[in-house]
């Protein structure tokens, strides 16, 4: 009798299980990129604190620093365009990376005044552990995103035990563009105590409004994963690479089915220090590794952005060791070759011990035809650069010149 009862109960749960599976959303294509026509140069008379532009009538990129919080160490800045055209930045700050006092800060950039607001605290370790109902030892990379309903969502890394290999991803949601935040929720993405999933790169929308979040593992394996996110849940995931050689994927979407992921290489010393690449032809359901992008990578994060007209941008350290040089590269929509359009930082001339670190770039566009770049400056500050549409168009036109100048070759080294 007991056995019959248990089997009847199993049958009931089987039916519920099948209905549950049936209610799961089908995998959707990537959201179409809205075609944006690059406008005429907008007024960019702000003074540049950095470098020269090759044409005097085009304003050079605007350079700024994210507000100083007084923390000894800052890192992992990320950006998101706000509904009113401003830019909100997130970064973590504390006595050192991985310290218990690390908090996630935020500030807003006003494009009219070209100034950053005073920093605010988004979340600290204690608030995270209270909300997640478990001990949290430290906080890590924050990555903002826009939900289909317009709310702002922040994914961030938390660690309960061990180093970054023990990371998990948590998320909070804001109804007021980042002023207040919901209670944090944990994303479950690994079967082994949910250990070792991190985020670094921006999410991309699917046509059905859900998000594709490029994530990565760096424990036993070091590989990329593509998480399909519905609000605060992982509803599917796909492996983007395998082994121990590629983390921090950045995804370039070409069309609703096709995308390319570039990775930070983490290979052993005898292997090529170049950018690993994976491709998908079915909107991220399956990924295949392909030939490396022949740009040097010193085990350092890469940032990528596709503008509305298809032009792609990359910010990275194009050297095999160290992080003392950071460059911006550009590639027309139909071209294969990346070319350096601006050297953002370069301390090659300095002795090794005097070189600073310029790392963790993060690129976004506020309107599809400009670019904002944030990156860690010597772990002490976060630098923000704004590239106007006019500047980007000028750089693009220079790409079109035959047999480009010597700088254009640097990206191919």
């Amino acid at each position: 009798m007991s056995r019959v009862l248990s089997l009847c109960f199993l049958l009931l749960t089987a039916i519920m299980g099948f209905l549950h599976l049936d209610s799961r959303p089908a995998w959707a294509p990537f959201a179409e990129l809205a075609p944006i026509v690059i406008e005429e140069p907008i007024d960019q008379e702000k003074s540049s604190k950095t470098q020269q532009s090759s044409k005097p009538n085009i304003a050079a990129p605007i350079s700024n620093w994210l507000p100083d919080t007084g923390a000894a160490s800052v890192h992992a800045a990320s950006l998101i365009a706000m509904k009113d055209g401003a830019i909100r930045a997130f970064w973590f700050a504390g006595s050192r990376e991985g310290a218990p006092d690390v908090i996630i800060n935020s500030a807003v950039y006003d494009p009219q005044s070209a100034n950053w607001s005073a920093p605010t605290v988004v979340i600290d370790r204690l608030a995270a552990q209270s909300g997640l109902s478990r001990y949290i030892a430290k906080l890590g990379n924050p990555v903002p995103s826009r939900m289909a309903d317009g709310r702002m969502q922040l994914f961030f890394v938390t660690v309960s035990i061990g180093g970054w290999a023990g990371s998990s991803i948590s998320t909070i949601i804001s109804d007021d563009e980042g002023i207040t935040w919901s209670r944090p929720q944990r994303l479950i993405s690994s079967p082994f105590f949910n250990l070792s999933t991190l985020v670094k790169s921006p999410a991309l929308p699917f046509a059905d409004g859900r998000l594709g979040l490029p994530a990565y593992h760096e424990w036993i394996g070091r590989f990329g994963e593509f998480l399909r996110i519905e609000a605060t849940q992982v509803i599917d995931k796909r492996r983007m690479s395998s082994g121990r050689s590629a983390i921090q994927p950045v995804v370039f979407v070409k069309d609703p089915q096709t995308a390319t992921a570039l990775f930070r290489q983490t290979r052993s010393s005898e292997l090529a220090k170049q950018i690993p690449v994976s491709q998908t032809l079915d909107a991220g359901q399956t990924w295949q590794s392909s030939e490396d992008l022949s740009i040097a990578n010193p085990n350092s994060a890469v940032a990528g952005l596709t503008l509305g007209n298809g032009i792609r941008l990359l910010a990275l350290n194009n050297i095999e060791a160290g992080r003392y040089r950071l460059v911006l590269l550009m590639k027309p929509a139909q071209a294969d070759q990346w070319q350096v359009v601006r050297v953002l930082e370069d301390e090659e001339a300095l002795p090794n011990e005097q070189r600073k670190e310029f790392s963790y770039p993060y690129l976004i566009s506020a309107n599809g035809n400009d670019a904002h770049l944030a990156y860690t400056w010597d772990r002490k500050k976060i630098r923000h650069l704004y590239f106007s549409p006019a500047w980007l168009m000028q750089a693009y036109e220079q790409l079109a010149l035959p047999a480009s100048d010597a700088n254009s070759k640097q990206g191919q080294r």
Partner: protein
Amino acid sequence: MIDWMQNLALIEMAITCGVIVTWLAQSLSDRTFSFPVKWFMAALVTNIFFWPLGLGMELPLAAYVRAVTGDLSIVLTLLLWSSVLLPSRPTSISFKLAIILVSFMFYPLALGLGMIDPYAWGYSSLGLLIGVLVFALVCGITGWTKGVWIIALAILAWVGHWHESTNLWDYVLDPLLAIWAVMALANSMQRKRRVKARSGYLFRAG
């Protein structure tokens, strides 16, 4: 996960800690505890793990355990609770063997070996659900009714999104279940060998 369900998850973890402490106490004791004693002991320890104790700790003890283990699978949780707090016969060797076999294939692949990720099947794979149901059916056919109930409840918890995970694997398998299966199998094999050796000594021809 709805906010108040975090408290349920914490209660679940606190009960599990209470049950484990009770089981450890029973294992170390020469006397056999009666079930009321086991229930009382488990309830007492559960309360110690659930309520904030202060003493320099920012959270209840269960929150520290949960930080390390995450939410345990429903299969492990119910198996543990029922084995300690209810009268039950030992889990079958074939169940332990099956858990070990699945775990040895599952974890290396799920943790990054190659491009096939069986963990991803847990989100929406009909094949995995059918596999779990067949496994439960085999448990029923072989007479292990408790296994059928446990697996059915695990599926129900997955459907109802009882834990933070939406992945079926997280409801039916976890690393601690695999470790328990390995240790329990080794233990029972050692016990069998001991019994066999003793019986051989007593009844050998001579």
